């Protein structure tokens, strides 16, 4: 099959176990530790990495992030940048790395993102329209935005609270198969989720990710380099991206998001239909995000996500199209911006056939999504098994 995306592959992955709190850890230490793990996994030494993509570091390093990270890591990359797409940053790094390699600017790119959770969280220094026109009315934080999206979706399609809650229950069930997950050993069913307190109606506490400390990294290189590594190469077959707005009030559509065109582009580049994808690694900051992504992917008609999930046999590794086998962020925890990269890392494990205890049978392809801000920053990737 001929794929239209840049011909590159993920040859290495790294993931730190998420923690609820850290004490005095600095972000750079977490990033270096997870990067070392990814390089070891790829079977390469640090001097073989000549590209560096990093995430924003609010409060710690507001500017010059790539140079600060490169210096700390002892790297001298020929291509570097910050990818600032919220929860879509991780997937956004992967296709940018491939594009930089295709442009001949570097050969092997480290994509790394993570954060601590020290007691003193810096407050946002924002002075932008979302700060000026939302916050003064009592609407700060992502919970309010996704509650507004969920209310609109419920109103338009008449879906019931338990339909959304089953997504959180499915994520918790998957987390029982992942010892790294923050909710490993902590099951919650639909009744538990609906019994948890309302945070911002109609969102219950357990429909919202738990913030954790953590870090994720991947190594992107040529298909040829990856084929020489110790693991099966996981190729980038397609990518798509779309940004529509920042503040939820400016959203062009409250019940469908920019992932719709992003996923369509990624699948078209890969030459696959969504029904052909073996593993769905769907960004899940809230239950509503998964519901809309299932619908925007074209797996079912708008408003039918719950019926589709039922027919799919749930979300587990033996479902027809398994979803978020690592537990999703609802089960694994959300290591801030690295949460989006966790969906990439799990897809790589599944395609390699290395998802111990939760392997999707005969998994050769994955559709990975990242989502940022108020369902407004979207990146989709199609990953496929190398020859």
């Amino acid at each position, binding site marked *: 099959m001929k794929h239209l995306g840049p011909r590159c592959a993920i040859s290495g992955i790294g993931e730190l176990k998420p923690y609820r709190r850290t004490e005095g850890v600095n972000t750079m230490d977490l990033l270096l530790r997870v990067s070392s793990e990814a390089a070891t996994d790829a079977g390469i030494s640090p001097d073989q990495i000549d590209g560096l993509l990093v995430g924003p570091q609010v409060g710690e390093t507001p500017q010059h992030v790539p140079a600060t990270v490169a210096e700390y890591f002892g790297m001298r990359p020929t291509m570097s940048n910050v990818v600032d797409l919220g929860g879509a940053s991780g997937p956004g790094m992967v296709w940018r790395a491939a594009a930089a390699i295709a442009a001949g600017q570097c050969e092997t790119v480290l994509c790394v993102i993570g954060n601590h959770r020290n007691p003193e969280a810096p407050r946002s220094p924002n002075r932008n329209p979302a700060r*000026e026109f939302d916050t003064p*009315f*009592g609407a700060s934080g992502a919970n309010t935005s996704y509650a507004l999206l969920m209310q609109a979706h419920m*109103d338009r399609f008449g879906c019931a609270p338990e339909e959304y809650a089953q997504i959180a229950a499915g994520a918790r069930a998957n987390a029982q198969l992942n010892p790294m997950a923050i909710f490993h050993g902590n099951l919650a069913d639909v009744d538990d989720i609906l019994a948890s307190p309302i945070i*911002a109606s109609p969102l219950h506490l357990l429909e919202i990710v738990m913030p954790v400390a953590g870090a994720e990294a991947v190594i992107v290189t040529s298909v040829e380099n990856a084929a020489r590594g110790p693991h099966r190469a996981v190729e980038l077959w397609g990518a798509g991206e779309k940004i529509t707005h920042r503040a939820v009030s400016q959203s062009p559509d409250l019940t469908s998001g920019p992932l719709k065109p992003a996923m369509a582009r990624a699948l078209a580049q890969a030459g696959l239909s969504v029904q052909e994808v073996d593993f769905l690694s769907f960004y899940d900051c809230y239950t509503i995000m998964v519901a809309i992504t299932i619908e925007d992917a074209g797996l079912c008609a708008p408003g039918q996500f719950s019926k589709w999930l039922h027919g799919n046999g749930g979300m587990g590794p033996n479902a027809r199209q398994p979803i978020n086998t690592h537990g999703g962020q609802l089960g694994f925890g959300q290591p801030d911006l690295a949460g989006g990269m966790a969906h990439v890392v799990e897809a790589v494990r599944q395609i390699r056939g290395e998802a111990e205890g939760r392997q999707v049978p005969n998994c050769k392809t994955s559709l990975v999504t990242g989502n940022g801000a108020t369902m407004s920053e979207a990146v989709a990737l199609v990953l496929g098994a190398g020859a």
Partner: protein
Amino acid sequence: MTTQSDFNLSELKVPGPTRNALTEQFWTAAAQGKLLIQQCGSCSKAVFYPRAICPHCWQDALSWREASGHGRLKSFSEIWKPGHPGWLPVSPYLVGLVELEEGPTMLSHILAENNAVKIRDALVFAPTDVGGRVLPLFKKS
């Protein structure tokens, strides 16, 4: 009664708007009981929030006009756990997306008895003191 009956919004200690030279006129007018939006003289579209040039056609042709103050509720949430702790004394309270009659949508704080609202409810501009500043809130009409 409203759910805020025990605690006046004016007593809140919460962050206000981060006004700048361009938006000053909007907030000043709101405090005087007038809701201003912008309209483009080139493409005729209405614009909210305030900008220096039109985001639809990129022409430098925006001017202020008084909005009717009527709108419809596109979505809402009853906030039980506010993102900013200063809002706790009045929680649960309503925030909503208000589609103005002129076209643009703005987020606002919604006043309704017992927080009882539905999507598509008609709303009307209700300038209200929040933390010592009169802000453009909306209430059920």
